């Protein structure tokens, strides 16, 4: 089924997974492979099963059938935290950032480093958080002067970078992005596209859901189109064009 993908061992190998919600079959045996340094776009109309598929990869839903392999080993995640521990991070559309906290505090939210003040009193290690934030954001070519500024002061694309920074700090190897460019203006969309390219250059695998064909063609290696819960088609980006993808999406 995935004859078009490269031959190296995939990081993520989704094998014919299915999911049913009551009487609705949301996914009917869909397969997907993701290799290191590869960007796969997930396209399809509303209700095609894109979100269901990513939520199964990220541990939100359990698969009813099929299996998911990570580095060749079958895995099953009970919770998103379990998936995250294995290096699968999701960047949600709303970014899930605490706007009133600094970049460092957001990166470490829920697992803050502590130090001992006066040798006995445990306190937040803000310096360690700031240093990690600065280094992590530098790998995304994001150079921060004011590390104490709350992320709410940053623009949409910059906040997207912070969310990505949080994922890569925790060694995400597979990054799932849900409509990363949907809420942004055009210059900001370009920045996010360049961020995705950087993740690719760093050897991470990226799966991103998008409706925007321009973005898909700008950054992905492969495109997977879903239609009503089934695979409508999988193409290498250089072998296809807008028209064909649209036809796949609408089932023409």
């Amino acid at each position, binding site marked *: 089924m995935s004859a078009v993908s490269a031959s190296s061992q995939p990081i993520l190998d989704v094998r014919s997974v299915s999911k049913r919600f009551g009487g609705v079959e949301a996914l009917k045996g869909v397969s997907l492979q993701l290799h290191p340094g590869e960007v796969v776009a997930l396209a399809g109309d509303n209700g095609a099963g894109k979100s269901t598929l990513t939520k199964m990869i990220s541990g939100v839903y359990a698969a009813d059938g099929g299996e998911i392999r990570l580095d060749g080993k079958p895995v099953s995640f009970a919770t998103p935290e379990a998936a995250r521990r294995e290096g699968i991070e999701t960047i*949600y559309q709303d970014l899930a950032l605490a706007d009133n*906290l600094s970049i460092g505090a957001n990166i470490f*939210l*829920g697992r803050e480093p502590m130090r001992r003040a006066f040798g006995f009193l445990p306190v937040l290690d803000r310096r360690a958080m700031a240093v990690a934030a600065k280094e992590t954001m530098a*790998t995304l070519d994001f150079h921060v002067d*004011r590390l104490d500024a709350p992320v709410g002061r940053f623009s949409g694309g910059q906040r997207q970078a912070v969310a990505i920074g949080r994922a890569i700090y925790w060694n995400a190897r597979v990054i799932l992005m849900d409509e990363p460019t949907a809420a942004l203006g055009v210059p900001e969309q370009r920045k996010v596209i360049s961020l995705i390219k950087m993740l690719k250059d*760093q050897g991470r695998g990226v799966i991103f859901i998008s409706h925007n064909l321009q973005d898909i063609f700008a950054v992905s290696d492969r495109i997977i189109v879903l239609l009503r819960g089934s695979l409508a088609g999988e193409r290498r980006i250089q072998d296809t064009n807008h028209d064909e993808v649209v036809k796949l999406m609408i089932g023409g």
Partner: protein
Amino acid sequence: MVAQMSSKVLVPRKPGTPAKRWILWVAAMRAWLFLALLLIVFEIWSRLSYGTTFVLSSYNAQSITIFAVAPLLLALGETFVIIAGGIDLSVGFIMGLSAVIAALVTNKAGAVLPPFPAMLAGIAAGLGVSLVPGAVNGWLISKLKVPPFIGTLGMFGVARGAAFILASGTTVPVSNSWFAALGNGRFLGFPVIVIIAALFVLVMHYLLGQTRFGQHTYALGASEQAAVRAGIGVGRHTRKLYLLSALCAGLGGVLYTARFTAGAAQAGEPLLLDSIAAVVIGGASLFGGSGTILGTVAGSLVIAVIQYGLVFIDVEPFWQFVAVGIVIIISVLVDQTQRKFGGDR
């Protein structure tokens, strides 16, 4: 792994013009500026009208701080709850309940025990009983998804009724020399209750500013989704917040009983509004996500100075309510303007 540093893809926004930064600084410091302004006004008024100092009188300073203790204690717990995006309307009557229980238990224990352990039993009972409504608040809000405003309003009624029933509708006098000394004694020249409150402020300042608990409180107020996805146990955290708020109110009740050597169900009745006002004047936003302990301290002092100062310059006491109300409204307006500027929160 290392990305090329060829082009700056993203550079954060410039911090803004000096004028804008100055406005944001004023907004952030508003409680302390308010306090300074009030002290200057009362000082001038006092000198012109009576030819005496207002601020520099140690008697006045002491009266104001003692006056500020009870609303401050309620406000400290309320600060956490408000930062997390909630509200606790039950603190006033939790304080009353705690005051009544502390008095009753001290008296009962005093019949069989010496005064000191009897006092300790009373304090433990007062603090302990406050945890009951706090636990129920947290359970209603986190498990049953009752909006905090409604859940704690219900608890306001329950705690009020329980306190009056236990006190048989009257005040419960305490005869315990240790308790009286706690409430009215001095240590190194400072009133003991002020020292206790100051220590408590330090602990709360540490808790909010330097611990994971505090950090998660801010995160919860900014975005519950962000907190959930970061793996923070939001329900558990919420329950802790309302326990903390109730415990602060319980301490307020115990210190009330100590100060007046009597427990009264209505001990905290006028303090609910004052405590929320102190938090809001102190820079917290009722939308959640912002606020500090030092701001709340300043807010509590602002209210105490207004109330004491107006009496001092011989204004009819009812004007206090008007003045505090106006200060609350101004604070909320400043908060909204600050949000529009998109500044520090």
